């Protein structure tokens, strides 16, 4: 089948088997060469992309499910203003990420930064915990996530009432 989707802001038509994983489609079509396909079961999160604005494990998404969807990979993320914030947060936290997980972590952190008005520290930690890699100091990634998280309205309100 032909999958019509938007990848990193560009309309794409890609031929794919219906059950082919979105991760494989993105890599072989060179739409997202940074993407890593590792566990194939959504466990490691290294294949993270934003699908219709939400971070998902693209190895769990069949091609047919992506029809008409908008996908943002690391390549697309790099051109956003959040990319610089993420890089600065990772550098400040001393995080050194490997080429297998950096795209996924960056996307997850970018999502946090973009949505910080409604994402607090706890949720930020949950988001960035979607990725599992053994390459680096995990507390540095957590620190970066916390730095990028905001203080959602309800938490601000409850603070004000104390």
């Amino acid at each position, binding site marked *: 089948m032909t999958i019509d989707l938007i990848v990193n802001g560009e309309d794409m038509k890609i031929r794919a088997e219906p059950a082919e994983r979105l991760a494989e489609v993105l890599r072989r079509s060179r739409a997202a060469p940074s993407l890593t396909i*590792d*566990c194939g079961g959504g466990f490691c999160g290294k294949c993270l992309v934003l699908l219709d604005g939400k971070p998902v494990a693209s190895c769990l998404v069949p091609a047919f499910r992506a029809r008409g969807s908008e996908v943002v990979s690391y390549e697309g993320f790099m051109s956003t203003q959040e990319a610089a914030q993420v890089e600065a947060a990772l550098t400040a936290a001393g995080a*050194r990420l490997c080429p297998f997980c950096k795209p996924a972590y960056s996307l997850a952190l970018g999502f946090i930064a973009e949505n910080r008005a409604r994402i607090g520290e706890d949720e930020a930690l949950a988001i960035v915990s979607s990725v599992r890699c053994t390459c680096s100091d995990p507390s540095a990634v957590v620190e970066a996530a916390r730095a990028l998280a905001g203080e959602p309205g309800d938490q601000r309100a409850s603070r004000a009432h104390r």
Partner: protein
Amino acid sequence: MSPPRGRPERLDDFDAPGTAYAAVVRSPARRGDVRAVISPHLPRDYRFITADDIPGSRVLKFGAEDIPILAAGRVAYRGEPIGLIAGPDRRRVEEAVALTRVEVDEEDPPDGLGPFDSSRLIDSLSFDDGGTEAAEGQAAATVKLELALGAVDHYYPEPQGAAAYYDYDKLVVLSSTQWPFHVRESVAAALGVRDDEVVVRPSYLGPHLDGKLWYPSFVACHAALCARALGRPVLLRLSRDEDLLYTPKRAPFEASYRLHLDAEGRALAVDARMAFDLGAYAPLAPAILKSALDAARGAYTGAALRCKVWAVRSANPPMGAYAGLAGSSALFAAERAADSAARAAGVGAPLWRLDNALADRPRRRSKAKARLARLIEAACADADYARKRAAYELLSKRRAEPGAPPGFGIGLAVGYQLNRPPRLSAAHGNPSVELTMGKDSSILIRSSVAPMDEGALELWRAQAALTLDADPADVTIAPMGTDEAPEGGPSTFSSGIGIATRLILDACEGIRERRFREALPITVKKSYRPRPKSDDGLEDASWAAAVVELSLDELEGSPRVRGVWMAASAGKLLSEAHARAGLRRDAARAVSTCLRERVGLAGGTAASYGLLRLDELPPTAIRFIEDDGLRSPGGLGELAFCCIPAAFANALAQAEGKPPGALPLGRRGWDEHDH
């Protein structure tokens, strides 16, 4: 044939025109004679490669072990490679593998580390200094422990794989390996060519925990055979599931450990029997046994020692080294015994260790002893060990009461890492470096030891620039390919980097001494010189003390780690930030390997391997003690694995009021799916 574009860091980025893909046909049975291999009909540009297609050596030689590159006639473990299918379309290759039937007259081999007969014995080592027998008669008390550590995965950032392509008259192999020269020798032997007809270029390694010592050579042979058969570039990358199930793991370990104590509770003698399940093939058996034997007493070198270690063959995939061969397993046993000894002696665990560690050397003559004392004090102070230990002891007395709070526990352990490279085989050389200052004062570093990541390379550049008053941008580190780096042995986890860093600093000093007396360019070579056998390496070792605090879930009873505190001493710290990040990374893994990281060797997938998530990891505090006595930088990478598991087990013993049993815990009571 065009070479690939660029020099990819990730194997999956290997991108040469006409690249074909390969996958492995494996034995479905644990052991037996292969009756038939029935593969689907393959299109013209696909190949099914078996042992008969190997032009050169059909085995990977490592010490006394001959490991079949592709099994023929008989298989020794489930997942053993029997054939390779290669072709231009990855999906079709995978489908062809899935459709291939391998029929085996399956045997039911004995397994595990229970009673084993001599037919399963690969090798053994023993040591007896004669003092244990006498001590047995004098001992006022004896600590007796039966201990077990199960297989855990190295879980490196990239599963094993290799790419191979011909570049004119040479075969180039891209491999994520700790030992590029072993890959070169192995591939050359399998292809029946000279070593210089094969070039190996390492790809990104990352924290490998010694899981990529020899197995990459095996996979590289597969990729090379496919490239030769097809006449085109080939990429062979194991899936994470394949890697989890079929590549080497930490060798399962069982120990029977006796620690004899005198009337004051001091360590008199150790009597230890340790066995390692090294799987169907055991290329590292001699080195693993030696590392375990050397660490059998742990830090308690004042005790006499009688020890026997066995390497046992089984129908598991080859098992092997983990974060420094097997020393960490032996240290685990020693530290569990130390805790029990402290309890038997009626003294606190820190005090028992202070009294008994390195007791064979006078305090004033042993900087290591003073160092260790400071480490124990620091870790215990940071963790508030004494107060919590006492409080949790009181809580434990109420365990049987209805409505009692869940168990809490806090445990201490110490460990060390020798700053000398293990000898894996007689053939390989010692780590070496070569530093050249060019006419333009630029600096080129060639090292036989490959660092795991960019951080170590940056440190080398920074140190060389600092020493030689240069700009770090003018310092180049030569790539680690076999046509670029000095020939050498494996880059073992951590110890190699510590040694290479020292050699680089020495080489820099050498250049500094000569640069204004001699014309440029100047080249200085430095090689590691093995220490005399009489030197046990402990004075020069990196040391650590770790405290782990945990609580038990009130419903499940499973432990939740509440905090980890480590104090470490590894000589001169070139970058405290880099060292701290590395130790935190390793501490997180060490905690994870105590909990759910259970390899289901009978099945199971990467998605159910229990690697902890970021939000499940405990807070970890690291403190460094720098020691003027150790001016050179030492390795750090093994330290977390040497002491955190034992500290965890000691904490769990307090929380549960009984010995914890095997680690990783997995889900206790659910053993039927695991071997």
